[in-house]
């Protein structure tokens, strides 16, 4: 349901939910079961939306007071991964009840990657926003693809998440079939061919970095399927701020400490200058021997210490008159419901 095509407006979802297999039919907005059934009220529609999630089936139970719309889809999730038909039907049903379909979560992000002397450093901020509210102050935007390859994701949250998970799975199978450690160029090729096939409808902007037998490599991949192979890249709504830092100070073959500082500064520029990015800086350092995930590497988003006292001392405002009026409360009805606490 994400309609935008500006990959710089990079959304990021709320946290990495390990159980989320992407087949959940419960829209994220409706975490609460708002059953507004009042027996005495004569309201036009009191829909109750209850969602249950399971990997085997997906069922949605919609019930309205006047009109009963109950529909259940079982087994379909197992047969096809596309929810386009279900989404279209949901939108129709919900709008007839006066409800708007929830929008795909669209948030800001700053992600960056650079190649240094011994390998690749990937960096990301950790803020996930829901319009103008921070939904998650510490979400993980650096995803595992294979032991030697990691991927930063911007764009539609669900798309980035699922795409990287699928790639990780396919790459593992590919590695078993070839008997070799996976290469970054392979992930790039698989990702670009998949994203091109979906003609940009999968809104995932990714930075893939890793070290394989041929050396360290860094690719940026756009939702429509074009890729760039560069020594340093940034993506997301904060990318303009971050690339400015890279363009100023990047040098080939930097030492580890200098490279870490540069990546940190680039992400920090995004955090400070872009409203959609914030909280901490996560770094992922990949060399041919090991991978270090530094989470958090830095926390530039600390709340500043207040320099003044803004509280007024009691007595600052003079009290001229005081009058106290007790409110009479009448007990009308008392109902006691026992809880079973055995």
């Amino acid at each position, binding site marked *: 349901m994400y309609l935008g*095509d*500006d990959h*710089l*407006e990079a959304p990021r979802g709320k946290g990495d939910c390990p159980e989320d297999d992407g087949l959940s039919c419960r829209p994220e907005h409706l975490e609460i079961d708002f059953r507004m059934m009042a027996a005495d009220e004569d309201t036009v529609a009191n829909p109750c939306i209850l969602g249950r999630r399971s990997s085997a089936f997906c069922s949605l139970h919609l019930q309205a007071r006047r009109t009963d719309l109950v529909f259940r889809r079982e087994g379909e999730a197992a047969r096809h991964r596309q929810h386009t038909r279900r989404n279209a039907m949901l939108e129709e049903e919900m709008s007839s009840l006066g409800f708007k379909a929830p929008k795909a979560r669209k948030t800001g992000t700053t992600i960056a990657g650079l190649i240094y002397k011994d390998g690749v450093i990937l960096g990301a901020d950790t803020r996930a926003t829901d319009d103008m509210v921070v939904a998650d102050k510490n979400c993980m935007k650096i995803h595992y693809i294979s032991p030697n390859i990691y991927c930063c994701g911007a764009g539609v949250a669900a798309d980035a998440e699922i795409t990287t998970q699928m790639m990780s799975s396919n790459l593992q199978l590919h590695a078993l079939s070839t008997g070799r450690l996976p290469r970054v160029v392979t992930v790039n090729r698989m990702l*670009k*061919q998949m*994203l*091109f096939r979906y*003609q*940009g409808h999968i809104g995932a902007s990714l930075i893939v970095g890793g070290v394989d037998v041929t050396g360290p490599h860094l690719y*940026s991949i*756009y939702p*429509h*399927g*074009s*890729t*760039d192979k*560069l020594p340093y890249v940034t993506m997301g709504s904060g*990318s*303009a701020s971050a690339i400015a830092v890279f363009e100023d100070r990047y040098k080939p073959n930097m030492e580890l400490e200098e490279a870490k500082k540069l990546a940190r500064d680039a992400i920090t520029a995004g955090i400070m200058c872009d409203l959609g990015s914030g909280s901490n800086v996560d770094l992922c350092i990949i060399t041919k021997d090991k991978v270090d995930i530094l989470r958090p590497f830095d926390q530039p988003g600390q709340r500043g210490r207040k320099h003044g006292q803004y509280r007024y001392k009691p007595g600052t405002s003079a009290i001229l008159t005081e009058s106290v009026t007790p409110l009479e409360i009448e007990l009308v009805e008392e109902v006691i419901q026992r809880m079973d606490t055995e």
Partner: protein
Amino acid sequence: MGKQSVVNRVMNKLSRLHDNVFCALSGSAADAQAVADIVDYQLDLHSIDMGGLPLVKAAANMVKDISYKYKEEMVAHLIVAGWDKSKGGQVYGTLGGMLTRQPFAVGGSGSTYIYGYVDSAYKKNMTKDDCHKFVSNALSLAMNRDGSSGGVIYMVTITDKGTEEKVILGNELPQFFDD
């Protein structure tokens, strides 16, 4: 109108289709890269089947076939050029799914600014160096005028002896009147 920004200022828009055939990409990066990758693969198979280097016309034909078939869905123009034994050096345009052999071809958003220059400066049977100057002058003029063009110039020279790739950096570009 969305934010526009330069995401890659050193993009190599010359894609290898085979050892003796290259193509120049323009239009949507995703579409152009996808077409070039597909033709790279198809040409690989074709040259194994035929037991030798492919004809430039064969490569251009493959590009043309894809461009024509997906004409409505894609926005990309690839100029295919190379050298083969039967016709020597060749340049083919594939705009709109049409195959045309030309002495020279220009394409992309910056090409509109240099039609006058290329028409007046091109001469038949130029030497290799003259051709290099022709290409770098034309591109430099276009880069100066077109907002979507810039950065560096990548140049590939394909002859019977082989293929040579060159990069002309920003400070080495030919200079023209620029106030």
